[in-house]
């Protein structure tokens, strides 16, 4: 049974439909990447999974259990199991790093403060920012904010981690640190879905690549297959343009 199954999901922003029947499966501990041109709906898939963009039809199953995005209880359950890291980090501007990381586990999940804080320090260490625990987001660089955002998501101890273009704001030196972090998480059995434009990163870290265009899955498979011998004209065209240089 796949850890996450997305079946024929349509999603709308207001009256504009951006996902026209998306379907894919993610196995437990697998890292799956969504790639494709801008505006193809990659980020929307992640947003729909955590109930930020309304799902209008189709359904999602986690561990074979159907999530009905129409009910707020089910959306809550989905958010309890999945954590998202945004492209623009979205750290809470009114809180320091430590509070950004610990707030939800303490206030929402009701975990003991001391335990959460110890874990937060561990996570900030993991992303290389333990000395910044008292800094406010506007005192950090984009790359630093993104790493705090990853720590914040991990502090929720999600089963499935959704990463939306997490490396796009990082300086080249730090991409490797994040890569290591993601590899380690995969080894620990964390299921991950990532959206990325960095193809070398995607090729290295993912076991399955899903190529999307215009709100639909065009093709999917192991990274080598998708990147080197794409079957569809659209994917050949896309990778031809971006992988040439």
């Amino acid at each position, binding site marked *: 049974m796949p850890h996450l199954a997305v079946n024929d999901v349509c999603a709308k922003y207001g009256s504009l439909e951006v996902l026209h029947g998306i379907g894919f499966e993610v196995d437990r501990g697998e890292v799956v990447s969504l790639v494709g041109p801008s505006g193809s709906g990659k980020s929307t898939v992640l947003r729909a999974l955590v109930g*930020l963009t309304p799902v209008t039809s189709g359904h999602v199953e986690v561990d074979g259990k159907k999530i009905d995005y129409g009910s707020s209880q089910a959306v809550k359950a989905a958010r309890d199991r999945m954590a998202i890291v945004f492209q623009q980090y979205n750290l809470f501007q009114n809180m320091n790093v430590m509070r950004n990381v610990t707030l939800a586990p303490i206030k929402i999940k009701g975990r003991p403060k001391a335990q959460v804080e110890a874990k937060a320090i561990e996570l900030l260490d993991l992303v290389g920012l333990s000395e910044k625990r008292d800094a406010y987001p506007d005192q950090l660089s984009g790359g630093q904010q993104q790493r705090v955002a990853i720590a914040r998501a991990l502090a929720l101890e999600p089963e499935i981690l959704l990463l939306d273009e997490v490396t796009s704001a990082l300086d080249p030196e730090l991409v490797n640190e994040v890569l290591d972090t993601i590899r380690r998480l995969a080894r620990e059995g964390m299921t991950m879905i990532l959206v990325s434009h960095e193809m070398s990163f995607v090729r290295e870290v993912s076991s399955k690549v899903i190529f999307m265009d215009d709100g639909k899955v065009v093709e999917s498979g192991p990274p080598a297959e998708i990147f080197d011998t794409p079957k569809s004209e659209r994917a050949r065209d896309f990778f031809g343009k971006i992988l040439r240089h």
Partner: protein
Amino acid sequence: MERIWEQLPRFFTAGNMGLLADAALHTLSMTFVGCLAGFVFAFVLVFLRQTPGMWAAPLRMVCILYVEVFRRIPFLVVIYLVLFFIQAVTTDASLFTIAVVAICIYAIAYTAEIVRGGIESVPLTQVEAARAMNFSRLQTLVMVVLPQAMPVIIPPAIAFAVSFIKDTALVSQIGVFELTFRGKELNNKGFSGILVFGTIAMSYFIISFPLSMLGQYLEKRLATPRGERRLRKIWIP
């Protein structure tokens, strides 16, 4: 002019000044209660107005209607409406109570727009991040949105309170013993209008000036979070 000089000692008596101080206290307490209630209920109103879902549509309509209606009626008309409504129901209500009710109704409508503006100044992405972590709407508002909206809300809210001190003069029309009413009274007693209303004008200034100073101070404090010093003027030679 000689008349004013001649009246001075008779006007600035302990009795008259006590009367004015009492009136100033009325003006101040009406403003204070009105603005405080306005501030608190404005948040409730804005929260209700942003309730999502089809079932809440009538609730949202009522909130929008309240704000739009009371911002479009002259304050004096609101005062008379409240006066006659309350007197239709009970004859026990004091004029002061009626004035306070009218002031609250009016202040809520105006403050609600200030609060809404402040809340809408916080980027939606902050709300999304909180909602994705399972914060409820109220938790998101209290822990994430309001702390960021307050610096935007406080300065215009205080500016409103300052200008509202002056608007309370209108309740003299229904006979509440506040500053302007006392002024008319003293004027009727034969004191020079220039003398009386000059003193009344000074009293309004004395009440509102410290409040606007507080507003300016808070505006500066809130604009520089965590005591950080920021550049106010940028010189580019």
